[in-house]
């Protein structure tokens, strides 16, 4: 039975608690303990939240979905080797490959040892390890998984795609029009974010966090800020907490509107894109008027927020909510009523509930396949515990379900914005500055889980006594969604790939870092 053994029960037996890790505990395991953990994972439903490396150590984070208990586990690996989790948690595989490419950590008995982020172009191998190595002289080509069978042909696509879109490579193997296998190769947008964060004061590293994935800049900034605040034990002013949620919901709406239109556009229904992109523009302009940046980049900072809402801000936001409430429902009705659209979205790009659970996929990808998880609710964070909202969950698992989850989320976010705006004035203005100074007199380790528009972001950070980042790992939700896209397209026709892809809307930049 899944979830029989409590996560903490096992960890207390096999590990020792590490001091100064907030808000959830971190356990140091020995190699035996790590092997016991792998056994435990095989028999329990704990979801993998992340896996990241350091020189000579590896960390992983887990959640017991039922109780919401979260824990980090660490293994010192002086030889740079650790037993792989990929056999019991397939989602760990790409993270292990990334840890190998950056830190030279070898996952023993892994299901797939190929390099992932390293394309032999950096001029250095394992750049973040203690001993970076010289590049391989004549690297061979990347080996894609073999495909065999009668009448199969391959379609290589990317890294430069046909639209205004981020780079990545897709290798389709098709039988006629039907895709029998898709293999992704990512890492093209690897900018070395984790390495650049190291040695920077939290305020500067926050600017990098804001640029991990531009469409989720608020959510990534929030995850980073909350991780830093947890590490330092800093309390953020209530007003800032509410303003952060306001920005996060604006970001969610803007992205959902853009993507809903784009999905319809990929089904040759350009009208919807023309309409939703106007609404999206409305949202961005309101964000600009309220926070001074259309995407609200660098507005959430460790310690609070960079800008307060101007006097007329509340009015503008309520006007925006009213206008979207008027203009969005008729578009939803059109989406719902067009047979030509439904024909393309219903049953297309199916992902099973079993698969989203096994990969711990969150956001609309998980929730359209029945995985009822939302970091705003569990483990939860302020101010959402004081706000009323529902988390829409469907079970069909197709493109249509993902569109509907997003439609419902837009409606929920509108209500959230309204609640936040109407209750915001209750927090006294003069006394409550939008941010506090970070007291960098102490270091520590912190972690945060934040719900972006595409799912749960985990950010883990360690700060030294000067408030300088010594290690930060931001794990974008895309890590656990990209692998499922490979499954979603199987059995569909090649022409449905754009629809599937857009309905997932995974981040390349967020994944590649």
């Amino acid at each position, binding site marked *: 039975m899944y979830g029989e053994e409590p996560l903490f029960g096992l960890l207390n037996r096999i590990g020792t608690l590490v001091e100064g890790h907030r808000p959830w505990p971190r356990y140091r395991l020995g190699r035996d303990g790590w092997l016991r953990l792998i056994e435990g994972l095989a028999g329990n439903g704990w979801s993998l939240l992340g896996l990241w490396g350091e020189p000579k150590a590896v960390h992983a984070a887990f959640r017991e979905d039922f109780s919401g208990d979260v824990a980090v586990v660490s293994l010192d690996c002086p030889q740079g080797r650790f037993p792989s989790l990929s056999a019991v948690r397939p989602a760990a595989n790409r993270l292990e490959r990334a840890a190998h490419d950056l830190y030279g950590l070898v996952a023993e008995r892994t299901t797939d040892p190929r390099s992932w982020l390293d394309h032999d172009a950096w001029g250095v191998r394992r750049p973040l390890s203690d001993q970076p190595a010289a590049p391989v002289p004549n690297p061979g080509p990347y080996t894609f998984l073999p495909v065999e069978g009668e009448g199969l042909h391959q379609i290589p696509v990317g890294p430069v795609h046909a639209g205004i879109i981020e780079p990545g490579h897709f290798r389709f193997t098709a039988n006629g029009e039907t895709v029998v296998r898709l293999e992704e190769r990512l890492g093209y947008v690897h*900018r*070395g974010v984790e390495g650049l964060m190291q040695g920077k004061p939290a305020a500067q590293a926050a600017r990098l966090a804001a640029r991990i*994935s531009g469409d989720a800049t608020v959510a990534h900034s929030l995850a980073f800020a909350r991780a830093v605040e947890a590490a330092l034990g800093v309390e953020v002013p209530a007003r800032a907490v509410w303003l952060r949620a306001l920005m996060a919901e604006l970001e969610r709406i803007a992205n959902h509107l853009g993507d809903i239109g784009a999905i319809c556009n990929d089904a040759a229904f350009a009208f919807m894109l023309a309409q939703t992109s106007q609404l*999206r523009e409305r949202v961005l302009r309101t964000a600009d008027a309220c926070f001074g940046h259309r995407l609200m980049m660098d507005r959430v900072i460790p310690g609070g927020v960079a800008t307060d809402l101007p006097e007329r801000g509340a009015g503008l936001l309520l006007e925006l909510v009213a206008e979207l409430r008027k203009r969005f429902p008729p578009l939803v009705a059109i989406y719902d009523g067009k047979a030509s659209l439904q024909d393309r979205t219903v049953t297309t790009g199916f992902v099973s509930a079993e698969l989203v659970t096994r990969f711990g996929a969150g956001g609309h990808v998980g929730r359209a396949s029945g995985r009822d998880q939302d970091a705003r609710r569990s483990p939860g964070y302020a101010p959402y515990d004081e706000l009323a909202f529902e988390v829409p969950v469907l079970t069909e698992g197709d493109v249509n379900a993902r569109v509907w989850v997003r439609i419902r989320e837009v409606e929920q976010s509108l209500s959230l914005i309204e609640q936040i705006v109407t209750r915001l004035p209750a927090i006294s203005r003069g006394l409550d500055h939008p941010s506090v100074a970070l007291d960098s007199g102490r270091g520590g380790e912190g972690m945060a889980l934040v719900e972006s528009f595409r799912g749960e972001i985990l950010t883990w950070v360690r700060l030294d006594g000067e408030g300088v980042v010594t290690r930060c790992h931001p794990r974008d939700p895309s890590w656990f969604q990209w692998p499922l896209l490979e499954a979603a397209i199987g059995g569909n026709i090649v022409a449905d790939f754009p629809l599937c892809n857009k309905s997932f809307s995974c981040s390349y930049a967020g994944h590649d870092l």
Partner: protein
Amino acid sequence: MLKHILTSLTSGPVTETAPAPADPALAELAGKLDKAARARLGRSLSIREVDAGSCNGCELEIHALNNPVYDLERFGIRFVASPRHADVLLVTGPVARNMREALLRTWDATPGPKWLVACGDCAVSGGLFAGGYACVGPVEAVLPVDLRIPGCPPRPTDLLAGLLALLETSAAR
């Protein structure tokens, strides 16, 4: 649906007036375009966008140019799918080393006369990513740049002003 179309038809355009072509951009360009090229381009431009390591923030604003409010196509500027159809490469990002080769190949696949526009702080200067092991730095470290549109990301109006400058200059006799 029909109601929607009728309202759109009768309520007038949602497009905004265009910004003036950016002056510094004009000055930067004036020297770079020769007569023959101007005659070739006329008053239309086809742009191929290349993400060479962007955080995707720049892409979001480039997308916005296509929305009905900015409606880029009314100026004769459009985004095309293939570099072979393009006059201009619009490049974003601090040129991730993993993208360098793909950027060069895309440039090689673009027929002359061609221009290269660096879009966003990352493409202009490398932004926050300059100096790391994974990025080359500004686009001009890889290819000759004809026009720079700074911003993080540039607002759609800035993008529009820059592209109009490109168009004006190329169409000027």
